[in-house]
């Protein structure tokens, strides 16, 4: 091989490994999922014929689909704003560097290192109706994960908790990257703390807000772990989510074409969210 060819090939060689895995484990499975969603697929995952929209029509006609879709949207639409308000508030409080700030910063970021499985098991006990501490403290007598009216609320408490650490850290650094002289002049002009927050700080950190909204929305739509461990979609489907439905259809029942349909619908949902948020960005977000 001549020097020239070698030199021209070099960047491609550096890129090759990552491209291979990106194609093999992201794009190929995505296209295959799309193909399976419009095909007849046997239990071994082989495509046996073209089905057109039949799988989708079947899926949309199923009661569990509309329930899963409703639950997933509800979960995302509550989880995201709640997490956002909590973490922005916490970061706003913690933004000025005070003595001992590392103590509470560490405490508030630690949830990002706690595993989903661990904290889910803790919540299982914490929210247990007979031995759990939450009912005792609040003076309630709620079955939480065993009652179809409260199971989703219990899942939400858990997912909001899981989102605190990383989002707090992002907002904290966003608040701190605002030049101090901007805040100083606002203070001189007599603007109060909360006035400054809404009129100056929030617009300035809006790129971070948008990023958090996007990633949290997608994450919330992917919620499946806590469901698998705590409720298996129950009681009476009250916590059935899209990914859990996909998991049971594909993995437990080997109904691959149905699982593929669910997965494509979920993907389109996340894509829509991302697009909406990015269109909002064009209008609202101020870059520094």
């Amino acid at each position: 091989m001549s020097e020239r060819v070698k030199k021209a090939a070099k960047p491609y060689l550096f890129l090759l490994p990552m491209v291979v895995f990106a194609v093999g484990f992201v794009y190929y499975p995505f296209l295959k999922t799309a193909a399976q969603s419009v095909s007849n697929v046997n239990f071994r995952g082989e495509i046996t014929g073209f089905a057109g929209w039949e799988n989708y029509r079947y899926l949309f006609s199923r009661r569990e689909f509309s329930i899963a879709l409703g639950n997933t949207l509800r979960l995302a639409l509550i989880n995201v704003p709640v997490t956002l308000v909590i973490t922005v508030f916490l970061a706003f409080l913690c933004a000025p560097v005070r003595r001992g700030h590392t103590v509470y910063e560490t405490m508030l970021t630690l949830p990002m290192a706690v595993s989903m499985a661990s904290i889910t098991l803790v919540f299982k006990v914490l929210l247990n109706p007979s031995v759990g501490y939450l009912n005792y403290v609040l003076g309630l007598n709620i079955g939480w994960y065993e009652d179809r009216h409260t199971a989703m609320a219990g899942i939400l408490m858990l997912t909001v908790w899981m989102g605190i650490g990383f989002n707090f850290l992002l907002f904290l650094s966003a608040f701190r990257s605002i030049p101090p002289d901007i805040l100083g002049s606002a203070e001189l002009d007599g603007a109060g703390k909360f006035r400054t927050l809404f009129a100056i700080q929030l617009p300035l950190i809006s790129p971070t807000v948008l990023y958090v909204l996007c990633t949290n929305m997608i994450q919330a739509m992917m919620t499946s772990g806590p469901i698998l461990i705590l409720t298996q979609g129950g009681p009476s489907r009250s916590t059935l989510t899209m990914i859990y439905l996909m998991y049971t259809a594909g993995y437990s029942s080997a109904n691959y074409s149905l699982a593929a349909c669910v997965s494509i619908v979920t993907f389109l949902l996340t894509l829509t969210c991302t697009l909406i948020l990015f269109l909002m960005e064009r209008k609202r977000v101020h870059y520094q």
Partner: protein
Amino acid sequence: MKRIRDTGLTLLCILLGCLVLFPVFYGLMGAFKTPAEFIAYPPTVLPASFLHTDNFRAVFTQVPMLRYFLNSFIVAASSTVIRLVLAVFAAYAFVFFDFRGKKTLFFLLLGTMMLPADTVIITNYQTVSRLGLLDTYLGMGIVSFVGASQMFMLRQQFMMSPRPLREAALMDGCGDMRFIVSILTPLCMPALATLFLQSFIAQWNAYLWPLLVTNTNAMRTVQVGITMLTTIEGTNYEMVLAASAVAMVPAAVLFLALRRQITRSLSGGALVG
């Protein structure tokens, strides 16, 4: 006046921190309780004695917890290393070379972030199963070798390192590989350490994929293993809490030890996006 207010705010922040960490604290404390303490009313947070370690002993004897740990460690460490190596190579190509299809390839790799991994999990399961990789470390790690966000951040990092530096190094007869290993990566160590930590914690805590691709007890990861405990007969609350405590400690310790690096590179803007 200002000092009093600052102290008040500090206390408030610490209080909120305690509130947020309460579930973790409750879990850790509960792991030391006896069954009798657990069903006692009113329920308590603190155990009667920290010397009661039966629950931890049970966690390590009733299930192969050490094996789970080993599995988790191997999978998390190796897939994180491979992910970062691939990301370094790709970022290197994008920053230091001009070539045809550069933009297309960049967006091809970045575009993987638009496709959430969980939505293709069933088809990836079919692929891994067809490759005969079920129940293997490679099968557990292979889907996380692509880290588009890591690649993106490394690209930002590399762009900050002066391009003449590479030209000078190459002039002196330094090859690309040697440049990457002995000049570029040391320059970007803080960012790499953070990316490693973040990725390792994420892999250590992964649940759905390891659950799917392992089917023998000996190959389970810690996270999957501890949830299996709840299906074993005779498992009680305090044992479940001991298991979850055991599973959360390594990642938490790692996080606490390297927290400074994370926050620093975050506030440097390296991790936003």
